[in-house]
């Protein structure tokens, strides 16, 4: 009714008055699935492509021992050494590397390393970034000011340098699997915490002034309860995008560290960046298979994760969301369609512009 009300207020439309019972815990409300059902056209295509790529990568990581003929650090088959820089053949589908490993095996096993790094890195950054952002945004004061300045300073730090230094500090320069993963993860955490911090802090600042938080304060709700139950749970809407960005950045940083020689030792695990580093000199000799596949794997993985993230962001932002074209459902059926908390109920976002106004006035 008035432009001063935020977009979530659009539910005064009759269509939003529900006709069916609660569907709170339905699987359809799960994050990605909800968006998948919401999406249409190009956006749906992007989301599905992303999900398929990520799914394939997951499968590759989990089933690596079944898919690959060799182990990731295996140099020798039944007929002795594989040999280095062997062209693709029946025994070695994608050839062998400069170190005499099987390219196919290492490319597939590389997904395991990448996923481990993603999981650890995202877990760390998410936890620390969210906690700091919440505290900083909610309490304000000098803690907030100091954290903001520090976060900005870290932001100004060349990320890769930060990653290298952190990697050396964390793992003591050693290149074991877990040393490498922790080093990369912590490095990524240091780089990404400021971003989570910013987003969560901004959201907290916004939510802090929302009436329902004030309502909670008026009845004397303990601060921790407010922060967790009211602020945090509502501040998470930009997290899916950040998480996917974080994941993509984790893969790229792992690869960059490996490329610069601060990565994981080849007999400890398969790591694309390291393999790519070792293959740089092969390219000019016309040996393309040692660089192409690990490089393509990095690109594909980042592509998949980013596609998912971008689509989720698009779907969360009503300005960017494409509406579904004609549909056979009757108008009243809208009530049973999942309704996002973002308030695009019945596809009638509030009038922020001509392309968004619906049957409300």
């Amino acid at each position: 009714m008035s432009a001063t009300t935020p977009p979530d207020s659009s539910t005064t439309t009759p269509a939003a008055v529900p006709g069916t019972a609660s569907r709170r815990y339905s699987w359809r409300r799960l994050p990605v699935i909800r968006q998948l059902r919401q999406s249409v056209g190009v956006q749906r295509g992007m989301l599905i492509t992303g999900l398929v790529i990520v799914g394939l990568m997951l499968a590759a990581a989990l089933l690596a021992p079944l898919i690959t003929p060799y182990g990731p650090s295996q140099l020798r088959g039944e007929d002795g050494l594989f040999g280095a820089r062997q062209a693709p053949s029946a025994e070695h589908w994608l050839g062998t590397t400069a170190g005499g490993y099987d390219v196919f095996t290492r490319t597939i096993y590389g997904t395991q390393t990448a996923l481990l790094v993603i999981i650890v890195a995202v877990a760390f950054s998410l936890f620390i970034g969210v906690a700091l952002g919440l505290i900083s945004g909610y309490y304000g004061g000098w803690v907030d000011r100091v954290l903001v300045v520090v976060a900005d300073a870290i932001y100004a730090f060349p990320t890769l340098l930060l990653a290298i230094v952190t990697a050396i500090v964390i793992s003591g320069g050693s290149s074991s699997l877990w040393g490498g993963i922790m080093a990369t993860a912590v490095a990524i955490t240091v780089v990404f915490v400021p971003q989570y911090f910013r987003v969560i802090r901004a959201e907290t600042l916004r939510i802090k002034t929302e009436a329902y938080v004030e309502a909670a304060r008026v009845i004397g709700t303990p601060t921790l309860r407010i922060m967790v139950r009211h602020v945090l749970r509502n501040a998470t809407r930009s997290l899916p995008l950040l998480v996917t960005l974080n994941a993509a950045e984790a893969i790229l940083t792992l690869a960059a560290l490996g490329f610069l020689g601060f990565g994981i030792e080849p007999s400890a695990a398969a790591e694309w960046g390291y393999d790519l580093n070792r293959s740089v000199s092969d390219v000019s000799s016309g040996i393309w298979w040692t660089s192409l596949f690990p490089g393509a794997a990095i690109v594909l993985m980042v592509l998949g994760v980013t596609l998912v993230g971008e689509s989720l962001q698009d779907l969360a932002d009503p300005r960017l969301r494409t509406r579904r074209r004609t549909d056979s459902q009757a108008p009243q059926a809208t009530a049973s369609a999942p309704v996002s908390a973002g308030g695009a109920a019945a596809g009638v976002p509030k009038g922020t512009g001509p392309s968004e106004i619906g049957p409300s006035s």
Partner: protein
Amino acid sequence: MTPQTAPAQAKPEEARAVELKQLSIRFDTDGGEVTAVNAISLSIRPGEITAIVGESGSGKTVTARSLLGLLPANARTEGAVLVDGTEVTALSRSQLRALRGKNAAMVFQEPSTALNPVYPVGWQIAEGLRAHRRISRKAARSEAVEILRQVGIPEPEKRVGYYPHQFSGGQKQRVVIAMALVLRPSVIIADEPTTALDVTVQAEILDLLRRCRDEFGAAIVLITHNMGVVADLADTVAVMYKGDLVEQAPVEKIFAAPEHAYTRRLLGAVLRLGEGKERRRRAAEVTEAGTGSEGAEQPSAPELAVHAQELRITYPGGLGKPDITAVDGVSLAVPAGQVLGLVGESGSGKSTIGRAVAGLTPVAGGQLKVLGRSVIGARERQLKRLRKDLGFVFQDPASSFNPLLSIGQCLAEPLIVSGEAGSVNAARSRVAELLDAVQLPAAFADRFPHELSGGQRQRASLARALALQPKLVIADEPTSALDVSVQAAVLELFQSLQRDFGFAAIFITHDLAVVDLVSDQVAVLRSGQLVEHGPTDDVLSDPQDPYTQRLLASVPVPDPTEQRSRRGESSPLGQ
């Protein structure tokens, strides 16, 4: 510049500025097709102001936008839309562009977003000119200056180069109107042009719109939900309800003899100043009859629920800037069991006082006692006891509930926090009682906030405020975001609850009619200072302060005849 257009009367009777024939508009949405406008027909004569009224979702804005072909891509139109005799729906892009601005112009609701922030207003006015006429920059600029002068912008020569943020809200709306007027369109579509403005500013803008018709001869399509505005300005009224046009008639006829049931209901829900006195008298009789209602008997209840003396509240300024004083030296008192109406325009500090009483905003100076305790400098722990006895109802029903919690969980929250209930399940029966008290079905406990309508949510909000049976309720504009008919029902509920529970209340609002209805006492605020404070009847019927007088005069009365005569009395709008 003298108006070139011939007076409206000179046109033949058949001339129509706007003609809608069996217009239907549907939207393709995520959830399927939604019909926004259902086969309406409407005609508007040149030089006439036609108001389209209706509640949220009635389709009035969509109808107005269709006149300019400004519908989103997912809209599908059937029927005919004729503007100045031109069929709009059949126009090509370039033809549509030629029509926009020249034949019909639009004035939007929110002046602050309708102007591009990065260009000077003169540039934006000239742009419209240059889009339709071959005209030199210099000539366009001088025309811009002229039109700004005509809409009452002081020093237009200088201010033509100002950016939008350098104007006040009312001035911005004048600029927007100037932009619409500069091309001398035959139709001006004004979509809620005064909703975002204060009452006193609203009066000025309405006057300007009237001059648009009188001096420029434009037909005006006015979209509004405010019956006072309608009575003040409109010549003809069209009432829309859920996409249908239910009634169209001259304004006097609508107010005097509404035909359609919905129109009657709409008018019946409109509050009028002065009605409160009567209701209050009746209510008082009821209370006396039923002596000894719960609230009055509380032996420990202090005499004054709220007592503020020389209250001063400041907000920290930006980096290196002085603090902003929001409330300055306000003294007021709310006796137990009574309702204080806190009135003022935006920025007057009324909400700040409410928040300070609830302990949400720190107090910078003076004294503030709530239910006998001083809240100044009190720690959260000390405030906690007090909070059990406080209820707060927020303005925006959409945001006052955590969207991720069900209504039941939200209502149980105060019970759990105060220790009265251990869990949401344990609080179930109490929640049901509360819902019942605000006339909502108990099944609503399982719904989520977004599944409720605005009015239902505000009822739930009341229920939450009352969960711990407070002695004091602060209601911050609880009805200003609601439709008229819903507003009336919620206010009625508030009054009956107040009678039943006997709590004291601070009722914050900008609407004098609402104050008149609900409060025993009134405090009028202006720029953080108390202007007038006294019993409602005295203040409203015999205002002492000139500001209160002007405030009262600015409120349009929802009665065309009376409003017309009032307008004659009050001084014509000078600057």
